[in-house]
């Protein structure tokens, strides 16, 4: 391989050396900031909410104020200042080690990047389900067949957003439904289907829709993709984590749930000699 051929092979990288080429925005020092085609200082600052700004930076779209207001309510709904919740436990443990508030907040937030809870990553699974279910429904498939095709455990379907036993109340669901009405949204086709799925699962499996199921359907009706919502909700739990951090940062060391040695159950090998 001669040196000229090498250079042409490397063109893809050579063009990017010491150069950023982008369409998202640019800081023009001392003057303005262009942000997805908008002027940040002249048009955005003071005129839109922080949530609108966040959605703009994630999607490139400036959503209407009430959509941002709804999302803000959704964020409030996972900002529990209760240190028993896993991400908040990490905030409290950071407090007890006197970590910086930023480290505490981001580590707790990182913990909530979970397939099990947290509202960000879980949005992907819940939104993928409802968006796929609607497509299947429109192509003529029955609810029974749609549900039959999802993974099951112990004879019950496993669907993010519909895992709640009917007997257990989800305190977030009704306020979200009320918020939708208060902000003047009509019921969209994803939410409509979500209620039908809720009814079917209740009748056949004793399962009910939780706030993740409802939110995912509502946000699908607003035109968001699952990946966009994961990105928008990346920092969703942050303020609850910060609250738990602050609570313990001001207390003496080891104040958060101190443990006896035997509070940890050892289930490993008995003592053995190092050879």
């Amino acid at each position, binding site marked *: 391989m001669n040196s000229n051929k090498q250079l042409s092979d490397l063109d893809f990288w050579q063009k990017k050396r010491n150069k*950023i080429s982008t369409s998202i925005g640019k800081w023009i020092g001392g003057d303005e900031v262009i942000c997805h085609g908008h002027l940040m200082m002249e048009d955005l600052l003071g005129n839109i909410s922080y949530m609108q700004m966040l959605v703009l930076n994630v999607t490139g779209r400036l959503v209407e104020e009430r959509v941002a207001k709804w999302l803000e309510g959704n964020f409030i709904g996972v900002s529990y200042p209760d240190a028993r919740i896993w991400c908040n436990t990490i905030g409290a443990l950071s407090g007890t080690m006197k970590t910086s508030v930023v480290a505490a907040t981001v580590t707790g937030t990182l913990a909530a990047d979970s397939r099990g809870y947290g509202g960000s990553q879980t949005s992907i699974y819940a939104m993928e389900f409802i968006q796929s279910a609607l497509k299947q429904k429109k192509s003529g498939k029955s609810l029974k067949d749609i549900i039959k095709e999802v993974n099951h455990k112990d004879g019950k379907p496993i669907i993010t957003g519909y895992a709640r036993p009917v007997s257990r109340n989800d305190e977030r669901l009704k306020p979200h439904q009320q918020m939708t009405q208060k902000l003047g949204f009509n019921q969209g086709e994803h939410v409509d289907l979500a209620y039908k799925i809720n009814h079917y699962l209740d009748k056949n499996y004793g399962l009910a829709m939780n706030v993740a199921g409802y939110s995912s359907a509502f946000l699908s009706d607003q035109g968001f993709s699952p990946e966009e919502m994961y990105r928008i909700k990346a920092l969703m739990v942050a303020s609850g984590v910060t609250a738990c951090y602050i609570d313990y940062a001001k207390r003496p060391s080891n104040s958060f749930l101190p443990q006896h040695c035997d509070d940890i159950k050892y289930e*490993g090998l008995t003592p053995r000699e190092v050879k």
Partner: protein
Amino acid sequence: MKISRLRRGVSMNQKTDFGYSKKTTTAICYEKPSKNNPFVAESIHLFGYDLLELTKKKSFIEVLLLLYTGELPTPNSTELMNTLMIGLINPGPRNPAVRAAMTAGISKSNPPHLLPIGLMVLGGVDGGAAEVEKSMQLIQRSFTSNKKTLFSTNSTNTSMHEGDIKIAPGFGSSYGQKCIVTHQLAQHLINRPGAGKYLHWVNEQLLNSNDDRVGWLPVGLASATFLDLGIQPREGIALFQILYAPGISAHALEQTHKPISSMPFLEDSQYELK
């Protein structure tokens, strides 16, 4: 009124079967409580071995492998791990995880944040720790299913693809060609007495590849070595982060001693808004 009622209210664990364990469990570490203070341990055992005895008789790498496999390694396995750890100790100042930590260092981030910043960036699926799990799973699966070919995708099909070619997690090209240093390290590892069936088999697969632009990448090399050491794919994620950690933190800390202006900051002419 409502708040004071709720303070005394029935909690969710009283309403239904809470379903959570009363104690955290582990098979790794036993802390024997002191007779006088149940919060203080008087001895610590790792997988049954007394910690102090380990400090007297074993090396750091042997105890590291104990933590991740549950057993102390053989001398050959220890030597293999030692070779890999030195080989990957510093991915270099151009690696994205190292660059991230260096950028934080030069911009005066809190020093304790530097290593976690690099490790978080290293968590990715493209050259990062999350790719190690995928790579290990693929190697394991391909090897056990009658040793079918590891690289099912013909890399020549991807010749129109911009940027580097990835023929499988952990294997591909580096800036359009084989990663030279990783190949040198791979040949050295394969010749170690501790090298096992996975390193040898993957190497054979690469030798049979019809595309001379692709080969071992650090993730693939770490993955095959971890499998030969009896490490599970999920544990491989963390071990890969540990292997890169010294290089990430050393480079980042070096930058903290310099003025912020000693790293390039692109000028407007180098920034194109399309």
